[in-house]
């Protein structure tokens, strides 16, 4: 029989047990709070610290005058919602408010309502709110009786392209500029090429956050100091750019072309005054276009190659005259066609007809394929001729990027005769610009060398970065001044000696010259030449003072549909040289565009 006394002892035992447990708890507490304190505190700090970036303001882009704003960044709000802790009533009210303020209808309104009532902790409702919309959201979310709950406005940068282009529905110099995606990355063109310069550097800040991820005030320290992006001034003249874009649109419509492009460049320092293609686009709508027509982003001037055709006869002229085997006055027979490779192949002129005996200069002017072939064959054996011609191309910058400060430039394709020896037909084709692929900017660069006295100058589109002017980049002398002068004279002869060209090219009061090109287009789909579709090119110059070119203008009409007058004689409403004339005239009459005196030595006269 147990008595109360025993029970008392047992109560004491229980108490002892309790004291033991309390002691254990105390020891355990000391273990966490004293022994492992530093470790836990360090882990807590590590877990509760966060780094975030403060976006740097992206630089703006101006034209060469520094007054026309082509691209700039504005701050717009992103609207998101945290509907996790909202009551159904609050969700409904918020959804109605959002739909009203954003003016949503139909599916968009339904989607927004769905997101607000989803109960998700974060859902983006809209980007790029107008300032009025942001204010309305703020007003609805605050006050004594808010109608919106859980809405989050966070600023993001929106790139705006402010100048309308020369064609409807486009922004100015869209393909040259490119655009900036949501992540702040420049895409295509100058925006991509100068991404790091324009974007600047984000400021990285470390701060403490609590368990819910909210930043703790006053704990932030700057880890990496950022800086804003720099502004760019392009070499582009906005008014000329507009005019060129208008001319291109007109030609595109008239010629039913697939694409038209033009570059206006200073041959001496490589500054590009105008740089345009059509079809172009509205860079502010890039996101929609990315889904419907992303091909329009590709810049035809640096990113697409084509067989240049007869404009390459000037390279042949450079090679043969430079080698001393032909002079402009050297006489050639032109029977209209030429049998090569011991009868295996042949070439013929565009009209397949013979012409009377003529000088080399006349042959180039009349764009005689047979004359170009015969001239090239005078360079020696086929292998020797191929080597000389190929080296001439390399010297003039073909087969490699020009280095223009625009993204996604391609190098083009040349066939190296030391890899695959050329046959006679290859040499012949090469002499009149078939069998290689080049970009319009490469043609402009090579012609500029012939026109500026023989120096290869890198084309460039940015005149100054921040307040720092960029400098011309010379790639060195590629021909003697005499040869350059000779080639320029040949270009002049093209537009003066052929009446057909003269009527479409000459501009009273100015000296012009250049070379046409009409290239067949190989259709890889059908493995045949495209029928009645040609790539038309004209690269030429315009000079206010005779013998001193002011501008080089490269024009390309891609897959124009000409009317055939007779074989070899094709007529289009706006021929390439006609388009050249319009653009050259626009450019030469643009006020203050071209410096009054070009600081170049007068080219020496050579005997004809």
């Amino acid at each position, binding site marked *: 029989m147990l008595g109360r006394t025993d029970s008392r002892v047992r*109560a004491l035992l229980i*108490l002892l047990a309790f004291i033991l447990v309390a002691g*254990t*708890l105390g020891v355990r507490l000391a273990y966490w709070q004293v022994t492992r304190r530093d470790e836990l505190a360090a882990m*807590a700090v590590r877990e509760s610290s966060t780094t975030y970036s403060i976006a740097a303001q992206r630089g703006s882009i101006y034209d060469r005058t520094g007054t026309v704003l082509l691209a700039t960044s504005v701050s717009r709000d992103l609207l998101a919602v945290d509907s996790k802790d909202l009551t159904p009533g609050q969700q409904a009210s918020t959804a109605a408010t959002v739909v009203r303020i954003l003016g949503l209808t139909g599916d968009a309104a339904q989607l927004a309502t769905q997101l607000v009532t989803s109960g998700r902790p974060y859902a983006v409702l809209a980007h790029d709110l107008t300032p009025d919309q942001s204010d309305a959201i703020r007003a609805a979310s605050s006050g004594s009786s808010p109608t919106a709950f859980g809405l989050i406005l966070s600023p993001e940068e929106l790139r705006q392209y402010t100048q309308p282009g020369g064609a409807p529905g486009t922004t100015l110099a869209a393909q040259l500029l490119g655009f900036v995606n949501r992540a702040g990355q420049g895409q295509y063109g100058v925006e991509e090429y100068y991404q790091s310069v324009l974007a600047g550097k984000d400021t990285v800040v470390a701060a403490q956050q*609590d*368990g819910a991820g*909210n*930043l703790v005030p006053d704990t932030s320290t700057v880890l990496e100091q950022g800086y804003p992006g720099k502004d760019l001034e392009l070499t582009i003249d906005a008014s000329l750019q507009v005019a060129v874009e208008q001319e291109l649109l007109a030609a595109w419509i008239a010629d039913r072309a697939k694409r038209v492009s033009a570059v206006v460049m200073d041959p001496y320092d490589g500054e590009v005054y105008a740089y345009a293609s059509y079809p172009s686009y509205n860079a502010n709508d890039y996101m929609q276009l990315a889904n419907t027509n992303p091909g329009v982003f590709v810049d035809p001037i640096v990113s697409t190659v084509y067989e240049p055709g007869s404009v390459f006869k000037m390279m042949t002229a450079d090679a043969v005259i430079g080698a001393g085997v032909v002079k402009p006055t050297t006489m050639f027979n032109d029977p209209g066609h030429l049998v090569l490779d011991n009868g295996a192949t042949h070439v013929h002129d565009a009209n397949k007809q013979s012409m009377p005996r003529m000088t080399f200069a006349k042959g180039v002017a009349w764009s005689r394929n047979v004359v170009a072939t015969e001239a090239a064959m005078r360079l020696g054996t086929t292998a020797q001729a191929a080597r000389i011609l190929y080296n001439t191309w390399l010297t003039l910058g073909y087969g490699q990027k020009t280095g223009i400060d625009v993204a996604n430039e391609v190098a083009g394709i040349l066939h190296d005769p030391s890899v695959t020896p050329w046959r006679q037909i290859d040499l012949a084709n090469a002499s009149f610009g078939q069998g290689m692929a080049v970009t319009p900017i490469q043609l402009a660069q090579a012609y500029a060398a012939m026109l500026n006295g023989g120096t290869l100058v890198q084309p460039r589109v940015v005149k100054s970065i921040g307040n720092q002017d960029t400098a011309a980049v010379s790639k060195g002398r590629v021909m003697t001044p005499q040869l350059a002068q000779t080639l320029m004279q040949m270009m002049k002869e093209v537009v003066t000696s052929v009446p057909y060209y003269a009527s479409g090219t000459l501009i009273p009061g100015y000296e012009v010259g250049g070379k046409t090109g009409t290239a067949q287009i190989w259709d890889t789909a059908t493995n045949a030449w495209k029928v009645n579709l040609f790539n038309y090119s004209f690269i030429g110059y315009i000079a206010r003072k005779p013998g001193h070119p002011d501008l080089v203008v490269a024009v390309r009409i891609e897959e124009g549909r000409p009317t055939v007058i007779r074989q070899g004689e094709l007529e289009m409403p706006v021929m390439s040289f006609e388009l050249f004339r319009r653009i050259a005239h626009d450019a030469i009459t643009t006020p203050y565009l071209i410096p009054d005196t070009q600081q170049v030595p007068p080219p020496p006269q050579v005997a004809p």
Partner: protein
Amino acid sequence: MSAIARVRPAPRRIPNIRPRMRRVELGLLLVVAAALVVGGASLGATERWLRAQATGEAITAFGFAPPDPRGLGAYILGLLAVHAAFVLAGRRTDQILLPAIGMLGGIGLLLMQRLPQSLVTQSFGTLELGLGELQLVWLLISLAVLALLALLVRSDRWLRAYKYTWAAAGILLLAMTFVFGTDVNGARLTLSIGPISGQPSELLKVILVVFLAAYLSENRPLLAEESMRLGPLRLPPIPYLAPMVAMWAIALGVVVVQRDLGAALLFFAVFLALLFVATGRVSYVVGGMVLFLAGSWVLYQVFAHVQVRVDNWLDPFRDPLGQGFQTVQALYAFGRGGLLGVGLGAGLPTIAGHLPVPAVHTDYPLAALGEELGLTGLLAIFGLYLVIVERGLRIAAAAQDEFRALLAAGLSLVIGVQAFIIAAGNLKLIPLTGITLPFISYGGSSLLANAIAAGLLLALSDAGAVPPPPPRARRWRRRSREERA
């Protein structure tokens, strides 16, 4: 003298009301009030300083006003009012319990006032109450209940005579919760009646103690005697063990079905402790613990949520942002607190109005207190619980009969064991179980149930209370002895 022992109980009137000073209680209550005022002032100053830091404004003068001076004042006045009532009633009840409980309740109140008030809100008509205000209301109600029980309960007949009725009521309560209750965090613990919702398992623990005390005291001699052997185990006669084990099994079963592991652990621990106090049989305790471990293993194998709890206990850092998030954040809080704590109001829980430990007001008040008061503060709090247990056991030792002894021991144990279970869970000593920290955690039912337990304890401590009815089994023997005398 002998008339009392007659079959008729004493007439239900309150004899000899004479005010009696309670100097110890008053002195301790004044210490408690001073501590709470200092705590409130420290809290208010810290909060203002942090706010100024956040907004960047300069601090011209330090203000020491507590965040809710009226609330704190009302609570201290409430404590003093209870004291005054005790004085006026003149009962010779324990003088230590009220200050100890008052201190714990005050710490809880300060904690609830400094946590984000939107954590819990409740509207009564146009009146909207936040966390601190609700806690204050419940504290005042609990103080009133405690005082009423301590003042009015003079006879325990209504407890001991109807033990099976109480047991039935408790089971019914749980069953109702299971059928009509609402789910919170996957456990069906809450029963809502109108605007008020409560956790019946809190009340059930008091009922369980009453039943166990009554049953064990009545059948103690039989349970203590060995009459059956099962291998090395010595068991009491089955018929006497059965009702008790059944009661325990049903309660435990329902609790397990409801997934309230903390309550299950608490019930079982109190059951074993009372069994030990009543019978002195270590073998029961050992056997019970073996049973418990076996049961736990089965639960771990069967229930996914038990596995989650245990895995979190073993290695909370394996998934520190998911399952282990709360445990890890609580450990961080303990670590930040260190020896002396960062000071009331300076812990992370208030910053930016978000909580690293979401259940800080119910399951993890110790984490917040450990951060702000440090090891020293928590040891003091453990000390307060020890004081309560010690007082309860002292009351048990002084009790006039077995039932009162077991009841007093059980009531104090239920408070102490619950506090230590949740503390051990917070400290990653055992897997975390979702029960409240008595008198500190937020929650009306928890405060009320513990107040009932404390009120009964106080009533039992009255040396001048109505003497217990004579034990039925030995009534004749005592009477004959009295007659002989």
